[in-house]
């Protein structure tokens, strides 16, 4: 009995300690804003693009706070995997960040949570963006987000493997790609011809590469069309590649980043990559003999999958509008913005930024394909659902008929 009492006491102490801690936690969170008489606090929620991201933002914030001593910026960096759950949880708890760097914004816009970004930037800053990118951020005439960084994709080719397999030049259309990849795969020894990542990490990107390359589309701001006859050739071609053994094993559940590592190790003939891939190769296997060429399409016409991530501003308290404007104006000034973009290996979305980077050798193959970039229909509120459906379902192409997979994705989008 004595013992029971002691355990009881221990439990009680543990319980009160837990509650005390919990209440501290709530207290800290509740002090949102912390507006003392002199200053404003901006909460900034951003994803991590690389190990440098946090440091880069800290530098930006330090510079900004120096110029604007009455504004404090709280930085929160999350992984891409968690970002969307974190923002949803924060919004549900009434603690939305003031500035958020993320992907699709249409859901937030539909819920009336966002500022029209023209209200939170100066006219000079706003007019510096490339028009095509701004157009991509508009929903019924209102601009809800600022383009942040851009990226385009291109085919990375392992020259040595192609030469070994007797392929003279990098492929430009699907037939050549299939032929070249099959030949490289036939080299054996664990070498794969084409690296095809259809796993959950970024299935929508590989899907876009093929479906759009065959003349397909994911839809526009009013309609998502995955189950569309124009998407079928691309999906069928993916199956053809898999069935011919031209890809690595189990493409349906292979994620992009780990597969890119295998390419960097020199065991994959060709794979679609991004500008940061150049830096990764530089760092991990500088010996690799590779070239970057446009993505092969059905008829050989140029096409690339463009991605622009966004910065958006949430309407929390009306009085932060000026502080947000100051932050955006500071961030997008070429001297701050260009080093950021360059350090992360992306492409700039401002005109002044593009001018500064025009001479960059490593970015040239990507800047060249940028005019032919097609974008995800991210202004459509249903795009988030489509994105999720691609991630969780598209890899089934490996085992299921192409039409069934497209139908299933469409069904999940329509239900979402």
């Amino acid at each position, binding site marked *: *009995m*004595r013992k029971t009492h002691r355990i*009881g*006491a221990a*439990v*009680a*102490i543990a*319980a*009160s300690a*837990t*509650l005390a801690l*919990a209440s501290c936690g709530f207290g800290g969170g509740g002090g949102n804003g912390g507006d003392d008489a002199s200053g404003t606090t901006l909460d900034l929620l951003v994803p991590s693009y690389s190990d440098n991201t946090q440091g880069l933002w800290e530098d930006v914030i330090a510079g900004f706070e120096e110029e604007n001593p009455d504004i404090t910026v709280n930085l929160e960096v999350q992984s891409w*995997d968690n970002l*969307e*759950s974190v*923002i*949803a*949880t*924060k*919004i*549900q708890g009434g603690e939305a960040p003031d500035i958020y760097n993320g992907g699709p914004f249409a*859901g*937030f816009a*539909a*819920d009336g*949570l966002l500022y029209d970004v023209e209200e939170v930037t100066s006219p000079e800053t706003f007019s510096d963006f490339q028009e095509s990118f701004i157009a991509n951020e508009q929903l019924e005439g209102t601009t809800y987000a600022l383009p942040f960084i851009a990226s385009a994709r291109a085919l990375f080719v392992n020259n040595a493997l192609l030469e070994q397999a007797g392929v003279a030049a990098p492929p430009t259309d699907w037939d050549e790609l299939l032929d070249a990849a099959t030949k490289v795969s036939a080299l*054996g*020894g*664990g070498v*794969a011809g084409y690296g095809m990542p*259809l*796993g*959950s*990490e970024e*299935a929508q990107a590989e899907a876009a590469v093929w479906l759009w390359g065959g003349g397909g589309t994911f839809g526009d701001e009013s309609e998502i069309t995955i189950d569309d006859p124009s998407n079928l050739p691309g999906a069928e071609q993916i199956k053809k590649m898999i069935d011919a053994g031209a890809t*690595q*094993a*189990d493409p*349906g*559940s*292979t*994620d992009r980043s*780990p597969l890119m590592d*295998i390419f960097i*190790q020199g*065991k994959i003939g060709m794979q679609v990559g991004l500008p940061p891939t150049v830096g990764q190769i530089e760092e991990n296997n500088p010996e690799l003999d590779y070239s970057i060429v446009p993505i092969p399409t059905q008829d050989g016409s140029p096409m690339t999958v463009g991605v622009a991530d966004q910065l958006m501003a949430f309407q929390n308290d009306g009085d932060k509008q000026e502080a947000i404007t100051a932050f955006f104006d500071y961030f997008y000034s070429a001297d701050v913005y260009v080093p950021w973009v360059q350090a992360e290996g992306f492409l700039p979305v401002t005109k002044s930024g593009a001018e500064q980077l025009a001479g960059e050798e490593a970015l040239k193959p990507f800047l060249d394909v940028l005019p032919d970039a097609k974008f995800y229909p991210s202004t459509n509120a249903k795009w*988030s*659902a489509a994105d*999720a459906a691609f*991630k*969780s*379902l*598209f*890899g*089934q192409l*490996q085992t299921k008929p192409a039409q069934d997979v497209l139908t299933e994705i469409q069904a*999940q989008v329509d*239900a*979402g």
Partner: protein
Amino acid sequence: MSRSRPGGAEPRTGRPRQGWRDTVAALPWIGPALILIFGVVLFPAVVMFVNSTRDISISGVDKGSVGLDNYVEVFSFPYFWPIFVRTIVWVVVVVAATVVISLGLAQILNKAFPGRRIVRLAVIIPWAASVVMTTMVVYYGLEPYFGIINTFLVDVGLVDTPEGYGWTRNPDTAFAWSIVVAVFVSLPFTTYTILAGLQTVPGEVLEAAKMDGAGPARTYFGVVLPQLRSALAVAVLINIINVFNSLPILKVMTGSIPGYDADTIMTLIFKYIQNQHKVDVASALSVVAFVIVIVIVAVYVRVVKPMKEI
């Protein structure tokens, strides 16, 4: 409880006011526990029930009540029943394998042998390590191209593709390996619970069995096992709940597989939240999962009658 107070007055039956006063007097002691139960267990559970009947937008805004629509969505999902069956398979296989292996391990650890202390400590290790870490180690080992398990299997000639086999890339093999990992991490707790049970078996009973001429097998099944009944009951019940609610192992091992061919209810809840941002449907499915666990436990208690005294 109040009646068995040590050193207390003799029980006064038929005087409810006294009992009430006792309860109030006990409040400072049970209060923190009650607050904890209400704050950390019941309050979130109620929020979950409420959420399951609301329409919550992708970005987390509550748009009002929808009655039971979320439950309809859960049950009309075409993969729900296969996932349900897989969940039952997952629980039954993992718990059964864990208990059988643990019975053997506990028996070994109950015998005196040199170095027993070290072996006993070794058995605790999977318990002490983080489940995600243990799973990641196995996951990377199974990766094609560089995984150590795959390389080993290629080297001994069991896998004939030079880059190895995609164990975690195919639903069936990934699920099977998940079961292996789940059994591995469940062993320490189960073994120690059974070991504790074994140490309550009185030596004279075993001696009596020996005197009566029972062989080792007969002694074990006729004498030892029945006495382990209550230890086994605890081990099985806690394992059922734990294994049913286990997310990390399957999340790591089957996370990159497209479709729903390796999912259990827990990973489906996770996918609703993480991929589709349907907090409302996920809440409804959580409520369903809660009911399923209760039913499984009720069936177990009903059929096996683990609490019955021998």
